[in-house]
């Protein structure tokens, strides 16, 4: 029942993108997310699409898995799209009834908003699809290291994150077991009204809570018994190292995003000229 709930939706494969340094992947992802907000034209989105196609191709992740990640935000996308159509104030009125006015500009704007959201999620999920949660935490710890200068407990934060991550499969398994055990005693989770459905989760939540506390206690005890001490002089079993892949990946991303930024500045400066072109909405 809870098998499908996975936070880190890692897709195991041996590919160019999988082997890239997780730190670089995070940084490039940030660049990508920022870059997307600079896109003001459909033409720019075509470039992003091209970039994503290249990235997906070199990650060996099936397109289906990538698209599945969009499914979760479809409702959000739809709501954003609809709200923007109605509330964006434009000039060219296409259709109006009572207080509802739909303008051409609103349609163009909400279309871009939808694409932006979808590309945002696809890009972020490409990171989690190709990087194990453990690698992600290592990378975040490494990237946040400068914060130790202002006494920020980076290592402890990373430890909490990686412990939480490593317990997710255990907790899912535990939940699964308890659900099965209660089902075996005739519990039904998918029938009845809202209240009875909510009530049906008590027999799962209480044992789960009890066992989580027990596990946390046991883990703390085990760490203490092995004299665990925070960040001072701790070494890593797996060191993150940069390779030629990171250079190539960065260069490819840089090329695409230079194109986007150039396009952005060209459009802002040349905007008055564009309306003369056919299908001008494609460019603006």
């Amino acid at each position, binding site marked *: 029942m809870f098998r499908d709930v996975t936070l880190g939706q890692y*897709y*195991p*494969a041996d590919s160019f993108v999988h082997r890239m340094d997780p730190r670089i992947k995070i940084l490039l992802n940030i660049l990508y997310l920022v870059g997307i907000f600079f896109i003001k034209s459909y033409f720019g989105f075509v470039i992003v699409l091209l970039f994503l196609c290249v990235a997906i191709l070199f990650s060996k992740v099936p397109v289906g898995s990538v698209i599945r990640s969009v499914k979760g935000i479809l409702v959000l996308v739809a709501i954003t799209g609809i709200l923007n159509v109605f509330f964006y104030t434009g000039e060219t009125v296409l259709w109006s009834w009572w207080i509802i006015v739909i303008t051409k500009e609103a349609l163009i704007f909400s279309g871009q908003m939808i694409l932006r959201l979808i590309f945002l999620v696809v890009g972020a999920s490409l990171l989690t699809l190709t990087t194990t949660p453990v690698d992600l935490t290592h990378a975040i710890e490494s990237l946040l290291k400068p914060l130790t200068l202002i006494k920020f407990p980076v290592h402890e934060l990373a430890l909490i994150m990686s412990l939480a991550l490593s317990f997710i499969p255990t907790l899912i398994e*535990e939940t699964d*077991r*308890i659900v*099965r*055990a*209660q*089902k*075996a*005693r*005739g*519990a*039904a989770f998918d029938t009845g009204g809202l209240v009875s459905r909510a009530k049906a989760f*008590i*027999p*799962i939540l*209480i*044992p789960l809570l*009890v*066992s989580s506390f027990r596990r946390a206690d046991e883990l703390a005890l085990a760490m203490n018994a092995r004299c665990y001490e925070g960040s001072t002089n701790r070494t890593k079993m797996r060191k993150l190292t940069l390779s030629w892949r990171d250079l190539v990946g960065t260069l490819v991303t840089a090329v695409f995003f230079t194109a986007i930024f150039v396009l952005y500045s060209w459009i802002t400066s040349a905007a008055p000229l564009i309306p003369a072109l056919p299908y001008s909405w494609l460019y603006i």
Partner: protein
Amino acid sequence: MPVVVKNLNYTYNPKTPFAKQALLDVNLTINDGEFIGIIGHTGSGKSTFVQHLNGLIKLTDGEIIVNDINLNDKKVDYLKLRSLVGMVFQYPEYQLFADTVKADIAFGPKNMKLPAEEVNTRVSEALKLVGLNEEEIGEKSPFDLSGGERRRAAIAGVLAMKPKILVLDEPTAGLDPMGKREILQLMAKIRAEQNATIIMISHDMNEIYENVDRVAVFVNGTIKHDMPTEELFQKVKIEEYGLEMPAMAVIKKKLSKIGVVINGRTVTEVFNEIVKAKGGKNV
């Protein structure tokens, strides 16, 4: 009516990189009132198999008939199936949740939508059957009990549904010797009083040897051997499957080499027969 399983196959996470064939052409018939043991290495498909019997794992490929319920039917009454096939999971005490032991045991019968009176009688009966004192323990929180008591309370929660077939997955794991003995005695009692069919998964070969009538050996998702207990441990080299010979079976084998044939299987029986063979009296 027996449990009949034919050509059962099952794959976890089919069509993904994590796909794993857990069961491969499993065939087994379990007769009424039988006490059958299921043994096998970790990951050999034992748990996957027993979870098919009460529909916790939906049948995807094969045939299963439990009493008069055919799991191949389009609409299976799972509530009826699950009160017919009671299942005690590994470490069942971790499923306890209610404020009191009694309320927890009542969970199953309540789900069966039995009238309140019937629920109460069943709770009392189940407590008595597992040997817990209703006055003393019934109103306590299940989290205040000892390990062995908690396990028996959890088993009572399943017994209160009065299953005709009882499946137990390593019911004695993690208990002290006395707790183990109590659980095994309880199973014998359930069998005698309720005339139930019992299916027990266990890694403890001594426990299997001394208690069950028949053993099915799971190896890599399929049943490699299915024989009466005595025959299995005499004929089959179970060490090959990563399992251990029961102590009493080893002793009997060694004694048979010097011409002493022993029929019993429990420690007491074997001991008495050895004493007899030596010309002494029963102790």
